């Protein structure tokens, strides 16, 4: 059992795969000096400037160039500094990277990883704090991975680099410097597999990225009140491991989906729909969702906090689902995110 920070898990994954496969290269703005969070620090010194390449501030062409390189024999890991900036690269990503296997009738493939980080919590305001995973979930041909802890940051990034198709690898900025136990540093989980991170019998909380930790804190709080919540960390958002979710819902009969992204058109809607299509007869209550309100993220800390779900909003959501009286100490407005 070793302890590792999320950022170190990411760096270790890149190092291991670069050692293993000479075709793996790293491209992005400031990657030679580590990027804004130090994740790629030291790679240039270790692997040289033929494999660790600083790019101009040209997101669309970074994406397209990496895609072209992947078509012609390389396995690029692209870093887009903030998910907000991937908006500039959407044409290449959506029209080319994700579609080339299909458009070539299966003759071509694009083995590349696009690393991005997202999430609120730093007071960075409307252009640096969005959670955009739902946009990419909507793109056929693109896999989407979202680790919540250092072990998955390490293992899932290795799996993504080895994958034969493009993988958008979403990190959460609020997790970068957390330290987790890594039970097996050599484990490489299969993409598209969720994980039950806390067993329970009264309801299933389905979530990913930072809200996994909020859901676990909420589950502990609920346990003290005699409510047993199961928490599922999806880990991969596309493909979705609905098998794990449905087997859990079959046992608990209730499901709550939690994400930091805006609720409207979010992943919660997709998951709720799939649960209701496949498991309507098992449900004792409608599937509930918690997410951010339909607003951009403000710089002000108070407003930013009001956007982001936390353990208390999850507790409040569960109470609402179960028809319980709100617990004492709940802050006013905490239930606002719940629909």
């Amino acid at each position, binding site marked *: 059992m070793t302890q590792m920070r999320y950022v170190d898990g990411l760096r270790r994954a890149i190092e291991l795969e670069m050692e293993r496969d000479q075709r793996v290269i790293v491209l992005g703005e400031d990657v030679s000096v580590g990027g*804004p969070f130090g994740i790629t620090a030291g790679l240039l010194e270790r692997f040289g400037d033929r494999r660790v390449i*600083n*790019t*101009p*501030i*040209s*997101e*669309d*062409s970074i994406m397209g160039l990496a895609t072209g390189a992947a078509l012609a024999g390389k396995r690029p890991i692209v870093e887009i500094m903030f998910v*907000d*900036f991937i*908006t*500039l690269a959407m044409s290449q990503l959506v029209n080319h990277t994700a579609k080339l296997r299909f458009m070539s009738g299966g003759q071509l493939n694009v083995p590349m990883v696009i690393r991005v980080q997202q999430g609120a*919590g*730093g*007071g*960075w*305001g*409307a*252009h*640096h704090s969005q959670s955009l995973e739902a946009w990419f979930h909507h793109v056929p041909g693109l896999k989407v991975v979202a680790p919540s802890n250092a072990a998955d940051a390490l293992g899932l990034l290795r799996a993504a680099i080895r994958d034969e198709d493009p993988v958008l690898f979403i990190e959460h900025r609020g997790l970068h410097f957390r330290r987790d136990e890594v039970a097996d540093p050599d484990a490489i989980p299969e993409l598209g597999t969720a994980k039950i991170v806390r067993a329970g019998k009264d309801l299933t909380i389905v979530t990913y990225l930072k809200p996994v930790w909020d859901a676990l804190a909420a589950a502990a709080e609920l346990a003290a009140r005699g409510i047993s919540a199961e928490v599922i960390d999806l880990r991969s958002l596309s493909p979705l491991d609905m098998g794990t979710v449905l087997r859990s819902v079959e046992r608990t009969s209730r499901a709550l989906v939690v994400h930091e992204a805006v609720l409207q058109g979010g992943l919660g809607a997709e998951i709720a729909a799939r649960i209701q299509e496949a498991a309507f007869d098992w449900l004792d209550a409608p599937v509930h969702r918690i997410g951010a*309100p*339909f*607003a*951009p993220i*403000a*710089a*002000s*800390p*108070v*407003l930013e*906090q*009001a*956007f982001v779900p936390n353990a208390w909003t999850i507790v409040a959501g569960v109470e609402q689902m179960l028809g319980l009286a709100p617990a004492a100490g709940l802050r006013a*407005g905490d239930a606002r995110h719940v629909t």
Partner: protein
Amino acid sequence: MIQTQSYSVEARRKFLEQMLTIRRAEEQVIHFATDHKDLIRGHYHVYIGQEASGIGACAALAPDDYVFTTHRNHGHVIARGGELGPVLAEIIGRTTGYNRGRGGTFHVIAPHLGILQTSGVVGGCMPLAAGAAFSIRKRGTTQVSLVFFGDGVLEEGAFYEAINMASLWQLPVVFVCENNGVARELRKSGQCPTSSLAAKQLTDIPNAFSIPSVIVDGADMLAVASAMADAVSMVRRGAGPVFVETRITRWPGNAGTFPVLIGGDYRLEWALSPGSAPQELQEWLQHSDPVALFIRSLVADRVMTKPDVEAMDAQIHQAVGEAARFALESPAPKAEFALDHIFA
């Protein structure tokens, strides 16, 4: 070659006042970030060492002109006439800020000053500035649209698309490229390549799009003011877009990820005798700090005495201090208003 115009004593005093105001306000921003827990939690960008560029540009503008800027916007907003209290309050996310705390340090927007967007995405304002100019053209007014951006914007595709349209349609845009990593010997002229751009001379690019351009020493307050006055007047007369490259040598405090006040707050002594400053600042103060260069020229030309400058600085210090207190004492927005301002 730029012919520096002559400026009155009053005009020169005013320039210095603005320079010191921006310098002291940005020091206050650094103090917000370093002396208070969680007041500025993420990254922030200060305009120290670039003051002449923004002040010279804004001095050339009329009240109804439009301005677009970047993550490094504080100096531009103040140069455009932004009040210190609402600017500092916005930077720390308070209700009394220009954007009621929604924008923060990256995004101070001030429509009443014609500042219509402040982009945190590199190059984001280039098409917007062309768009405001497009409206001016269609409405047939004599306004201009001015956009500030760093040299990194020339790496983004939107830059090329926007300057192409601006030139094709002869839009009244002043493109102000603040090239802020220039060695001091290259500030006035010569090729000035950046590590991430294949063009050796930035102005070759607008020139290829039939946009006239000028390079100006961004440490020389009066040279910038003259160049900007010429550029704005050309654009206002209907000559189409103009590109101004202000060449700036980086303030040593901006070398790392976060700004650092080397040796503490700026001292006027350092401006008058750079040898008295911390070693890391001396060369910059001697050759590249627009404030130091301007103070020395004002004193040498007997426009101001050393005590005059000290008195001006003391007043500015007091005003910035009051504005900082105003900002700190202002309330944060309330959570129940989180959904305001999404739609009409």
